[in-house]
């Protein structure tokens, strides 16, 4: 591969840094936001991403997140992405993506050459990608922007909680539960009962004028392949391997909401899903303390370098846990459980 460099800062700066690494150096990317010519405002799960790049292709790939005007929100982070067309395009996002974090920095490598750093203190994401990533809209919408807001969200007040979220007449239903409990499948069933899907796995909560607002990510829904036994209309889709090693099929969120996917709601009901072998579907009150413990236990630990993010997350989770919460024990198929939840919500 021919050595190259992209200069978006000064040549003098490049010359200095050239001198700092003597060997094995193949790709150096100097990324200066002011020199990236293309800018766009994105709204992702209630957070504003001030995006900059040198690539029209990247802008096209992220167009679904674009908002026409600069949003009035303090929940903002910067993202500066450089396309280096000389980077090899051979990479497997599912098997060759690696994340690590220390203090305020989170590193991500994709394949050998693509590299991102998430700076939680400066609320900034910087990265260099290949042509393959630049043109891969699914990469951005299914993986990278959801991951980015998952990493950065808490630092700007968009707190991720491990829960599905659906909306009915402006009231939000959050469905939590351990992995494998069936949240996503139940969410699909709930969309057949008059609910609109906001999120099937991670929901982002923000405080707006003292109200808690739940946002979805508008990303494709991941469903285990056996979902087709309940929803035959989803058959024929090819399962893909995901980061966690699970095989899952991917369905656009619009498929579950005839009126279009809802993007936000106000949390009103909080349900913790438990599968049992016994028939029936029971609703048992769940304490706010237990609800708070569940969400805090499911959240990634935050470093002490960003104490305000930890405080914001604790406050948001505490507010959420104060919603009416129930444990839903069910041994019924998802459609039956969903209908029981619909009836319960109509009464409460």
């Amino acid at each position, binding site marked *: 591969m021919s050595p190259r460099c992209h200069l978006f800062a000064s040549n003098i700066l490049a010359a200095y840094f*050239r001198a700092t690494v003597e*060997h094995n*150096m193949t790709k150096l990317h100097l990324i*200066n936001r002011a020199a990236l010519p293309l800018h766009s405002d994105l709204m992702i799960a209630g957070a504003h991403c001030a995006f900059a790049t040198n690539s029209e292709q990247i802008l096209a790939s992220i167009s679904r997140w674009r908002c026409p005007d600069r949003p009035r929100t303090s929940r903002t982070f910067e993202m500066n992405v450089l396309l280096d067309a000389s980077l090899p395009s051979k990479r497997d996002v599912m098997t060759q993506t690696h994340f690590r974090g220390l203090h305020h920095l989170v590193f991500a*490598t994709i394949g050998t050459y693509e590299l*991102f750093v998430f700076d939680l203190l400066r609320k900034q994401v910087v990265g*260099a990608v290949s042509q393959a990533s630049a043109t891969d809209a699914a990469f951005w919408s299914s993986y990278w922007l959801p991951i980015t807001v998952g990493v950065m969200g808490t630092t700007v007040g968009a707190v991720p909680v491990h829960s599905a979220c659906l909306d009915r007449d402006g009231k939000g239903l959050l469905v939590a539960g351990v992995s494998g409990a069936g949240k996503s499948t139940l969410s699909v069933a709930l969309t057949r009962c008059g609910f609109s899907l906001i999120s099937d796995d991670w929901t982002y909560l923000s405080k707006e004028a003292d109200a808690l607002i739940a946002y979805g990510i508008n990303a494709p829904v991941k469903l285990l392949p056996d979902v087709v036994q309940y929803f035959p209309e989803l058959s024929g889709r090819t399962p893909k391997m995901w980061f966690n090693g699970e095989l899952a099929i991917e369905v656009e969120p619009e498929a579950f909401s005839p009126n279009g996917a809802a993007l936000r709601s106000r949390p009103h009901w909080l349900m913790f899903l438990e599968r049992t072998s016994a028939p029936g579907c029971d609703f048992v009150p769940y304490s706010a303390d237990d609800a708070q413990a569940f969400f805090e236990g499911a959240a990634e630990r935050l470093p002490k370098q960003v104490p305000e993010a930890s405080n914001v997350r604790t406050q948001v989770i505490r507010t959420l846990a104060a919603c009416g919460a129930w444990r839903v024990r069910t041994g019924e198929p998802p459609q039956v459980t969903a209908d029981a939840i619909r009836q319960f919500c109509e009464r409460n």
Partner: protein
Amino acid sequence: MFAPEPVCYTDPLDLLRRFAPTPLKAHVYLEFANVLLETNDLSFLPSLSVLGVREPSSQSCLWKIVRDVDARGTATEASIVMAGSLIVYAMGPACLIGADRERGEILAFIGRDVDARLFQESILPALIRLTMFVTRKQDTPIAARSAEVPVGGQCNA
């Protein structure tokens, strides 16, 4: 070769290994900086002896180096991102180094299969150069700084 000890990262959740314990501490005196090293593995330290011990410098820097028991494989070609006061130097999962000039920190994950030789030949030079980046005063003229550092062969400008 590093012998890994099993560590649970799921309770509490720490998928990024942020909280991998680094109980071992050492001081490394470079010509231009005093380094406080925090790590969970000192097996690569013998290679640091080549640096020698100098008079204490007025500059200081933290090296937090985590031996990552879950990162397998050897180092790949290097990829570097430089933005503002940050430099990230990666050689695949086997070597991830972030240098933050404003905070005087170098944070690194070194994969389990990286041996002392690879560390000394490939990673240590990068750590030292990044330490220069971190500890040099920002008001020093850049041209003067570049003249003090030998230029590498394969860099790409």
